[in-house]
């Protein structure tokens, strides 16, 4: 009896399906697309928030702990000011200058005031998420990049000068380089019609090379902190730095895995490679420090992790997990040598090692991506016959190391020349350095009129 009823039901069901099949399939396709968009959008909004978390409080705590206590608020404000100011600049024109199709070197102004940037996806960049999500995700990268530079002139730059410089720097350095690497038709973008193919998954060149080399120039042009290196300038709270570094590690999953622009297996791959690199960077720095002066320090361990993270950024979505670990290991040792030995020999005052970690790490990461990038991880680039193109040296494409080198040189050139121009212009508009007495009293009181730590009533 029940079998008969089941058979009758199936018969009806089949005939019903046969009649409305075309409608059902298109409805099904829509439902699948909506479900994928929901999943991808959830991840990308979360990733955007994670990348913002890297600047505040991540970088603010990391840098804030490394300075003397009289400068803690001034240093944290540099990061926070970027969160506020770059957001508005990005919305007004920054997004358009980077991601609108224009010349190979800069986007046009079609997205001025986010004109036309809404719920509909931009198929060129991220076909499954709202264009607005892509816009706000990329905004967070523009926020952290100038905030990173601030580590080079910590404890001595005036607030207004820092804000002016950072604003000019975005237009002269960040927007052109980001457009070249990531924008449609960008000179270095291999996926959207570029001339020289440079693989930069999450901003090794766009973020770390530009900010790191700019930091070096800024440190040299501004000069040392008064009293450096004779007077003690110990970090006032490595506890703050420790918390900040752990937040950077956490936020970096949004930075690197989020750069897959979807909740995809590629995001997972970038996530794992990123994590391995951070771990290996920390291990390498601890070993180097133990061998060099007998103790593995907390500051060393977190510095190594950040070095690993900065270095793997460029290749995160192109390399295998253990290539990521190797990249992190190299980063830990080389950045240690830069910060501990080379910087002190050369005598420039890159106060918080923005160059030693981000510049050197970014440059190595750019070149190492040319070595380790493989189409087993990322098959987005196709040959004319439709099969995945060989990416790095491990795929047999040794020339990619040269291409990455061209990308790095362009990033460095923009960073160095752009910073010189931006700092000179800033100097015409306002006083860049703090007065001697102000520097002695600290940024918190003289620039902001408040103190970070009040333990009395």
């Amino acid at each position, binding site marked *: 009896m029940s079998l008969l009823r089941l058979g009758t039901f199936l018969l009806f069901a089949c005939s019903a399906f046969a009649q409305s099949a075309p409608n059902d399939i298109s409805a099904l396709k829509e439902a699948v697309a909506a479900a994928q968009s929901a999943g991808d959008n959830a991840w990308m909004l979360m990733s955007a928030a994670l990348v913002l978390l890297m600047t505040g409080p991540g970088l603010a705590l990391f840098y804030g702990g490394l300075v003397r206590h009289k400068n803690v608020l001034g240093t944290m404000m540099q990061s926070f000011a970027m969160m506020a100011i770059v957001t508005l600049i990005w919305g007004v024109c920054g997004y358009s200058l980077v991601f609108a199709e224009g010349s190979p070197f800069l986007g046009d102004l079609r997205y001025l005031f986010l004109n036309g940037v809404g719920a509909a996806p931009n198929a060129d960049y991220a076909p499954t998420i709202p264009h607005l999500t892509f816009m706000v995700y990329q905004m967070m990268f523009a926020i952290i990049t100038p905030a990173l530079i601030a580590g080079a002139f910590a404890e001595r730059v005036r607030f207004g000068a820092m804000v002016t410089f950072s604003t000019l720097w975005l237009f002269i350095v960040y927007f052109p380089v980001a457009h070249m690497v990531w924008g449609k038709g960008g000179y270095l973008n291999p996926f959207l019609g570029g001339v020289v193919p440079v693989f930069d998954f999450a901003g090794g060149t766009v973020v770390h090379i530009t900010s790191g080399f700019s930091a070096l120039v800024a440190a040299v042009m501004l000069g040392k902190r008064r009293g450096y290196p004779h007077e003690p300038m*110990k970090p006032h709270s490595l506890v703050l730095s420790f918390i900040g570094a752990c937040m950077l590690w956490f936020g970096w999953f949004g930075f690197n895995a989020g750069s897959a622009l979807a909740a995809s297996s590629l995001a997972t791959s970038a996530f794992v490679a990123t994590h391995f690199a951070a771990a290996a960077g920390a291990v390498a720095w601890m070993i180097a420090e133990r061998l060099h002066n007998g*103790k593995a320090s907390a500051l060393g361990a977190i510095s190594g992790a950040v070095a690993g993270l900065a270095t793997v950024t460029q290749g995160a979505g192109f390399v295998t997990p253990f290539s990521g670990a190797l990249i992190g290991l190299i980063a830990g040792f080389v950045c240690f040598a830069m910060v501990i030995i080379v910087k*002190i020999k050369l005598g420039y005052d890159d106060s918080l090692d923005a160059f030693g970690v981000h510049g050197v790490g970014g440059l190595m990461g750019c070149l190492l991506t040319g070595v380790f990038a493989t189409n087993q991880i990322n098959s987005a680039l196709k040959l004319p016959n439709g099969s995945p193109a060989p990416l790095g040296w491990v795929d047999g494409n040794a020339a990619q190391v040269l291409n990455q080198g061209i990308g790095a040189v362009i990033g460095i050139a923009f960073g160095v020349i752009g910073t010189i121009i931006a700092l000179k212009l800033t100097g015409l508009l306002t006083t860049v350095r703090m007065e001697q007495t102000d520097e002695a009293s600290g940024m918190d009181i003289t620039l902001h009129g408040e103190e970070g730590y009040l333990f009395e009533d």
Partner: protein
Amino acid sequence: MFKIDAIIQPGKLEPVRRALAVIGVDGMTVSEVRGHGRQKGHKEVYRGREYTVDLRPKIRIEMVVPDNRKDEVVQALADAARSGEIGDGKIFVEPVLQAVRIRNDDRDDLAL
């Protein structure tokens, strides 16, 4: 009246307070200070920059006691604060001319 001014290791504050409580002394002023006697400093390294730290964290206890209690307080304090290592600290004793309890204007021994 004598003022007892003791510089001790930070970890010895609680043992000293217990020992003083046992003999019935509970008024004192405690501050965190830095200094050194014969104890050598230590080296700190932050990203390759070395600092020699000579001034060590110490705890300073100040209290004023009546003449007849000076010796037992000093002894109890020294015994409780002693580890036998360099850096245990010092105790200084000096005469006090006058004491006033601000609340009710009690004077000298009454004010202690």
